[in-house]
């Protein structure tokens, strides 16, 4: 066998484990979901399963609960993404400016990202507990009234955002830090010579050079925000009064509490379409940036 063929085979062999899992757990479910989306398929009445064309999509379009869930999801994204970028940027700039101990602090900042969402959720449930939670303990000691972090309709979503920030900003900060460290020193030196220091230097030199990284961070987090589910499921269960029930949770409940797999698949395709828009946006902007 020629060495080219051997290399090609080796390449495929390296890819095989991932490709197998990708096909099994990504590609096959996508195809199955596409099939289910045009079917009436309710696990409780398999005998009534049948092709319904786009009816599931039409029903979903008119579904008030789905509309509400999209609003909740958009609200989460609108709160989460800007605050994440600002927080992560601040952390990255701070880390970048550290002359010593940067690696240790970076590891500490990154630590929460390594927790699973389940661990994070349980931990923050305790923090938020009205009676014996950490936050209300602090408030009480300061002589302030306790806050219903998770049971007030107006506070529940910001509380979830706060938890999500704690959980994810370390990871995003590390990406931004890598971007900051990739900026050649000479740009900063040249700017300093021209008198562009401090904020001026940041806005005129650092930020423009970091734009591709920021773009990547914004779009990937936006896509992630539209998949908002486990945080709310763990902290509020979607309440109070559905104020934190996002699209994915509604899809999950439709599929696994209501057993309406066809309808849930149609809704998941609608969500996928929204996420795809952001994906394409990122692709287009990145290409524009590169050219």
């Amino acid at each position, binding site marked *: 066998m020629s060495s080219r063929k051997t290399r090609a085979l080796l390449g495929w062999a390296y890819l095989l484990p991932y490709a197998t899992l990708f096909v099994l757990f990504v590609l096959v479910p996508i195809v199955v979901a596409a099939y289910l989306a045009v079917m009436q398929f309710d696990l409780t*009445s398999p005998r*009534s399963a049948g092709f319904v064309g786009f009816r599931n999509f039409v029903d979903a379009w008119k579904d008030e609960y789905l509309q509400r869930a999209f609003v909740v999801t958009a609200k989460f994204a609108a709160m989460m993404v800007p605050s994440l970028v600002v927080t992560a940027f601040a952390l990255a700039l701070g880390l970048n400016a550290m002359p010593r101990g940067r690696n240790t602090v970076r590891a500490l900042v990154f630590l929460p990202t390594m927790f699973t969402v389940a661990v994070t959720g349980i931990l923050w449930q305790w923090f938020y507990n009205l009676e014996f939670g950490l936050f209300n303990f602090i408030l009480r000691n300061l002589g302030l009234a306790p806050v219903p972090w998770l049971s007030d309709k107006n506070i529940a979503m910001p509380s979830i955002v706060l938890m999500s920030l704690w959980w994810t900003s370390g990871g995003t900060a590390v990406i931004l830090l890598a971007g900051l460290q990739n900026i050649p020193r000479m740009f900063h030196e040249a700017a300093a010579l021209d008198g562009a220091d401090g904020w001026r230097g940041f806005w005129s030199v650092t930020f423009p050079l970091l734009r591709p990284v920021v773009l990547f961070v914004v779009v990937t987090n936006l896509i992630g925000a539209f998949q908002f589910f486990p945080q709310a499921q763990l902290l509020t269960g979607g309440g109070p*009064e559905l104020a934190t029930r996002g699209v994915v949770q509604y899809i999950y409940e439709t599929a696994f509490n209501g057993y309406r797999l066809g309808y849930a698949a149609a809704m998941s395709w609608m969500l996928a379409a929204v996420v795809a828009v952001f994906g394409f946006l990122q692709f287009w902007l990145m290409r524009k940036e590169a050219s």
Partner: protein
Amino acid sequence: MRIRQALYGLLATILAILVVRSGWIGAVRGRPQTEISFWNGFTGPDGRVMLELIRRFNRENPDLKVSMQRIAWGTYYNKLMVAAVNGRGPHVFVIHASALPRMHRAGFLEPMDSLYREGGVPEEDFEPIVLRTTEFDGHRVGVPLDIHPQGLYCNTDMLREAGIVDERGRPKPPTNREEFLRAASLMMHPRGAANPDRYGFALTHWQNNYQSVFPQFGGRYLDERGNADLDNPGNVEALEFLGRLRTEKRLIPPPDNQLGWIGFRQKKVGMVFDGVYMLGDLKRLEGLHYVGAPMPVLGHKPGTMADSHILCMRKGLSERERDGVARFIRFLSENSLDWAEAGQVPARRSVRNTDRFRSMQVQYAFSKQIPYMVYPPRIVPLFEMGLEINLAVERVIRGRMGAKESLRIADENAQKAIDRDRAESQAPGGGR
């Protein structure tokens, strides 16, 4: 030399494990062991009681081996449904009576009429209302293991402190509306002063609490034609009553307080409504003194909500497996007095009519409600209806909407779910 010895040892161990696992020993003795898988959601202290029962059954029936898998109720039905619809479900499993319509329509429940006729499970030993939950198309698809009605838990120290005692000085749980309101108020202000951290009564699971109260006001879930009737006058009156406890009388904690069951455990709440199954949680606490009692009559007649764990069998089992499952179900049914210790009321009358059961204070008190308890409606979109009821109660307790309007919205949405389910279940593709 040592390495060789270790290798021989390892080989011998592997061989021994293989021989034992293969069931060859049993086969040689002429008794091949039949494996029975049993799924349930008993992940709390009740699971330990069930495990003990299974160990006993396995000891007494060496030709059978029952192995139990416990899955939290939150995801239990998803897993059971997906496995069973594909023919890979467990041999025997527990289903709530309220979930039976869904599971039955999915088509994997084996009729169990013969178990009642000749299998040693006497029909007449069950209450008709409980048996009816297992009937579909003229067949029985399960055997009720227990009944778990909602009832009243009272902190006896708080009752005594508030002076709510009988003529012999024993704490006296309230039995009617007047006594209930008085107890709630006195326990909140034990010495005439209000304590912001202390309440006489708190709601726990709003949906369940409300469903335990509305039968007392003549409320119901469905009308005679099986359509949603959540905004009927009885339901409205019941919800108005609960709403007023918060918005006017200020007798229950603010909704954001989250006291509920935790408050009862912490001795900050004097009374709560909850299921008999919560007893397992209370038994673990030290220093909390409590009694169980039937729901006080807050409306015009006694009433409460109940559900049951039903033992069911999967379709498509071999003759030997069916026989093993039948023996196991009969065993659990006959020994449901042990199961009652976990915080349940046995479904069988003969088991309840024993001194040992009467000595179980909470279970016995809750069992007195059997003559008038109400099961959730036998409809497939029960999850959707439950969600609507929960939202309706939440809107009222938070003071955002009146009971009538809130229940009208719930009724409208529940009816939509019922209509959709009817249309979709009738013909392939829905026939709408």
